[in-house]
């Protein structure tokens, strides 16, 4: 904190307040702009508690819950990516590259197959899916994938390259059955599931946000306790251990936290790819030497990227909206290439 104040020559100190302002602006934009045009005065009236019934239903039941769910999911993916990049000392680590999202996807696909298809073959909307279980089921799948990666990588040593390659392999193995499950599903539901699979905030209600919120709170509350171990996990194991870190235990805790955050979000919104990869890079790029700013910047940017990405998808696609996962994937690639060009 103090090093941020001491710095005079660099703009890093301005990035955090500016990012928070941008987060608020994107929130306001996402509330005010949408496929259905509502007069701003009506929106303000609605927010004050006395708008027209139409505006009420659109703002309170459609836009706001969707935005809040997106913000929470964005924070989950971004923080999960940051933790993964730090503990594996790998700039390319991301929940979707490391197999965690795929584990969650497979678990959710299996779960949906078992519950929806077997019990009620007639239902065909995501809204009717047993969503209260989805973050938990996703988390189980993500943790299982994380466990497999951990076991494979820990077999001899937790080198960053080894764990990443294991993650990619595990992810590929888990992704294939998830896709084939969904492909064998029957045409009525497949469209909706494919949308979920590409990462979508379509038709997310307050229920989704409320189910995600405890995970967000628990995850963010765990971060201050893990912050000093996380600092040391950025070093190679022998160095971290000689500084006094119980490396395996802390690595495991950090990996579990990352898996929980990413996989619970996958359960609710599907794998929104690249958020966990790009946001921590942007945050580090802004923070430069001020490491203490990286985490708050990551949280704020995670919220912004998903909110603006979803708004873009809503506006460009109009009624046939573009899923947020597609937007982040398309926008993410140039940013990734730019960032990689800057790294030695």
């Amino acid at each position, binding site marked *: 904190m103090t090093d941020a104040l001491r710095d005079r020559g660099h703009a890093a100190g301005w990035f955090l307040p500016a990012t928070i302002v941008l987060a608020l602006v994107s929130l306001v934009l996402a509330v005010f702009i949408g496929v259905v045009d509502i007069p701003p005065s009506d929106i303000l009236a609605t927010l004050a508690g006395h708008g027209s019934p139409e505006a009420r239903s659109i703002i309170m039941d459609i836009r706001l819950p969707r935005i809040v769910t997106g913000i929470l999911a964005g924070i989950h993916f971004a923080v999960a990516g940051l933790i993964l990049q730090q503990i594996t000392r790998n700039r390319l680590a991301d929940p979707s590259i490391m197999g965690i999202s795929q584990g969650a996807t497979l678990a959710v696909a299996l779960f949906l197959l078992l519950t929806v298809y077997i019990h009620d073959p007639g239902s065909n909307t995501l809204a009717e899916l047993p969503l209260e279980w989805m973050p938990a089921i996703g988390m189980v799948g993500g943790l299982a994938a994380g466990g497999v990666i951990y076991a494979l990588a820990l077999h001899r040593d937790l080198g960053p390259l080894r764990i990443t390659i294991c993650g990619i392999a595990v992810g590929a193995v888990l992704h294939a059955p998830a896709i084939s499950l969904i492909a064998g599903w029957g045409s009525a539901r497949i469209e909706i599931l494919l949308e979920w699979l590409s990462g979508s905030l379509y038709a997310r209600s307050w229920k989704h946000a409320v189910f995600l919120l405890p995970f967000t709170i628990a995850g963010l509350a765990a971060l201050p306790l893990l912050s000093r171990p996380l600092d040391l996990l950025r070093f190679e194991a022998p160095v971290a251990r*000689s500084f006094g870190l119980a490396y395996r235990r802390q690595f495991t805790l950090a990996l579990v936290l990352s898996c929980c955050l990413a996989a619970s979000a996958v359960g609710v919104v599907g794998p929104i790819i690249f958020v966990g990869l790009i946001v921590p890079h942007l945050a580090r790029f802004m923070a430069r*030497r001020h490491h203490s700013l990286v985490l708050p910047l990551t949280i704020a940017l995670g919220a912004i990227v998903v909110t603006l990405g979803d708004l873009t998808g809503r506006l460009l696609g109009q009624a046939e909206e573009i899923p947020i996962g597609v937007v982040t994937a398309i926008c993410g690639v140039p940013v990734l290439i730019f960032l990689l060009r800057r790294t030695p």
Partner: protein
Amino acid sequence: MAFSCSRLSVAYGSRKALNDFNISLGAGEIRALIGPNGSGKSTALQALAGLIAPTEGMVEIDGKVIGSMSRRDIARHIAFLPQQPAAPDEMTVGQLVRQGRFAHVGLFKSYGPKDEEAIDWALESTGLADFTDRSLKELSGGERQRAWISAALAQEAQILLLDEPTSYLDIGYQIEVLDLVHRLSREKKVGIIMAIHDINQAMSVCDHITVLQQGTLAFDGDPAALAESGLIEQVFRVKGRFVQIAPHAPPHFDVELARWGQA
């Protein structure tokens, strides 16, 4: 402070890297660990630091076996610096040195005045007080090595294990690091074991010299005794002799280069 290892053996698979190794270290003592490449110097240091579990034997500090101590507890007694340690990108000298306090600060507490004092002392002893905000990447090799030593000092451990702290540094920086090591042992009574390649540097700054050959202790004693033993020629497969350059200085090993012999 009493630090020792007894019958310490380490095996990587079927290959024995360290065999029945015994040494002890007192407060303020500097001990050099020399030996050819692959003779087990790094393995010995890492086993002494508790970073690799020995297949046999044990390391003891003040009567406690370090295998049964927590990492945090070990770190308050022993600081270890590996060969060419890597720091995360964009880390500053100040941030690196702060990590040295990890073992002293509870997870739920923040840095207290004692910690800040230790950090300031570590930075000052290594001459880095004005470098705190500099990125490690901007530093020269010698400055970077000093920053790492500074982080180890912030640990306030009574034992410092250094794996080739002078390798890859030019002669000026080598002497700088050795001076620092010497000062720490004499002024702060820190016990130091360092792996080092330069025999003459080892002879001039160290109180004791340990020679390792294929994982086994080949010699343990003071520099003068090593000079008399004739072991250096045999262990390193070179021809040379020890010469007395200055009256009170330790003898200097003068190596004979093969080309000169032929001429």
